[in-house]
């Protein structure tokens, strides 16, 4: 889900209510800002729209079990890790995952220095409270290293979404190529990408590259908190990805980001360093209609309503009027949205001259 921005201006898309099992059959709305057109396809057809020398960049962050319960009416959701190993978290009160975040009870106040226990093995001390928002706290776990991760995976669950039929298990929120668990919610653009599709892209001369971006949480249930999202996020660009980006540029290929987190990492790196150089950094870049991407040419992403930050980011790649027309069509045509929904590809020239 994505934080709402303003009042609605287009038909609502229905949410995908479950993790779907239709192999390769999910829908792909291809939007071509150059031709001002869009067309209905299936995700399995993605390779048709990319060409030799293109680079598809994936976010290979695995998703942490970032939801921890300290008390029956006190949930903490991890949302960012600091260099010193402490985590920022946001608290939620009474209610379970079936309740939309905005309908959850107000959690009790947390004190700095207070110790919370999540399981017999795992606890954490509150080391800081946000000056403006009592629900934002920084915590330090009672364990480190292997003990911490073993206990965190035992006590934590993936952050849940109220629109789903069933609670998510850890395996529901991992992409097939994920490795280091630094994302707090699923980088969902990669979810419909099967290895069948990825290997077909490679056979056609498309190069695959990866960044690791610590995608943060999408919804806090509070308008004032949501307005501060996304938080600055950590990303890592490997030397292999950096070299592929440079090679793609010089060969005249296009860079397609699988997900807004990839856009944020690559454009954040360019904003900070002029080029998407290798290294680990933090970016607070926000993209919108006023931003011109400097390294990313196209975007493969999910579908979200027009009043979301996700839509605002898409406006960096295509005119608002075209996106609104495409979204209205998608709603009428039965596309579904959110983390387990259908996909869209925004790429100039995708639909030909």
């Amino acid at each position, binding site marked *: 889900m994505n934080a709402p921005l303003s009042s609605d201006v287009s038909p609502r898309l229905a949410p995908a209510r479950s993790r779907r099992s239709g192999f390769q059959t999910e829908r792909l709305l291809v939007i071509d800002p150059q031709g001002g057109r869009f067309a209905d396809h299936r995700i399995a057809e993605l390779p048709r729209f990319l060409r030799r020398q293109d680079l598809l960049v*994936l976010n*290979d962050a*695995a998703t*942490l*079990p970032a939801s921890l319960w300290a008390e029956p009416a006190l949930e903490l959701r991890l949302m960012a890790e600091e260099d010193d190993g402490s985590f920022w978290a946001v608290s939620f009160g009474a209610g379970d995952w079936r309740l939309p975040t905005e309908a959850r009870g107000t959690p009790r106040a947390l004190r700095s220095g207070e110790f919370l226990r999540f399981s017999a093995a795992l606890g954490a001390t509150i080391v800081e409270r946000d000056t403006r928002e009592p629900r934002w706290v920084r915590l330090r776990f009672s364990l480190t*290293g*292997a003990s911490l*991760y*073993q206990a*965190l*995976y*035992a006590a934590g669950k993936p952050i849940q979404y109220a629109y789903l039929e069933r609670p998510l298990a*850890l*395996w529901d929120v*991992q*992409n*097939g*190529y*994920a*490795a*280091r*668990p630094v994302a707090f919610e699923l980088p969902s653009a990669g979810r419909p990408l099967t*290895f069948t599709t*990825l290997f077909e892209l490679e056979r056609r001369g498309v190069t*695959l590259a*990866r960044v690791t971006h610590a995608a943060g949480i999408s919804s806090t249930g509070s308008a004032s908190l949501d307005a501060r999202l996304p938080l600055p996020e950590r990303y890592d660009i490997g030397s*292999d990805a950096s070299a592929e980006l440079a090679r793609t540029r010089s060969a005249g290929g296009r860079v397609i980001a699988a997900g807004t987190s990839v856009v944020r990492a690559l454009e954040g790196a360019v904003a900070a360093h002029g080029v998407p150089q290798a290294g680990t950094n933090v970016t607070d870049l926000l993209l919108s209609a006023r931003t011109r991407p400097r390294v990313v040419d196209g975007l493969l992403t999910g579908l979200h309503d027009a009043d979301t930050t996700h839509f605002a980011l898409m406006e960096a790649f295509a005119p608002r009027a075209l996106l609104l027309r495409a979204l209205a069509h998608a709603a009428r045509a039965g596309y579904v949205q959110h983390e387990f929904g259908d996909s869209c590809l925004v790429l100039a020239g995708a639909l030909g001259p």
Partner: protein
Amino acid sequence: MKFTGQSALVTGASRGLGRALSEQLARAGARVVAVARAREELDAVVAGIRERGGEAHALSYDIGDKQAIYPLAGAAAALVGPIDLLVHNASSLGPTPLRLLLDTECEDFSAVLETNLLGPFRLSRVLGGSMALRKRGCIVHITSDASVNAYPTWGAYSVSKAALDHLTRLWAAELGERDVRVLSVDPGEMATRMHADALPDADPNTLADPQAVAGQILGLLSDPRIQNGARVEAQTWRAA
């Protein structure tokens, strides 16, 4: 050192061959995640590696438990990064003394396959995607001569290892183009607790030392003469 900069995950690492492999990988510079059910034995192995200046982390999981796979994969990558070398060494004989197929409970047969075959498949599936994307990685299935010989009473174990050998070939066929290497390695008979459980009357002095076999395995992993997907006998392998 030969494995400097590499991350390795070894299952069944609390004793025997798994322990020896963990120790030697760490000595050769790898960042090692050692996995086994037995917490205390595992902690002792990791403590020993660290005392000698190596990097190792102990994760206590049962590879035969489906629920353990994603937590294990996530925790391992959190500790050492994407896994480069995955050694499926953990395995179960099933109930001992070993018994005829006609005396084997179906549930016991099934449990052996969970640990010896499905567990390795599940874990490779989770870690192999990153290897395929990074075009880098090696998966080793520790097999047995019971995979190619039909010894009476070795039923479930034998079947699981035969299937594992073929799983090796299939992984190699699908991932070979992406520079992911997958091998079956038969360590031969070793003086281990598992061997004593299976064949209590064997003379340990006639059996190989798991440390020596582990050294052979680390050597053969980088032998370009060995084809991807091959089944290799560790004790008879010789460096070029």
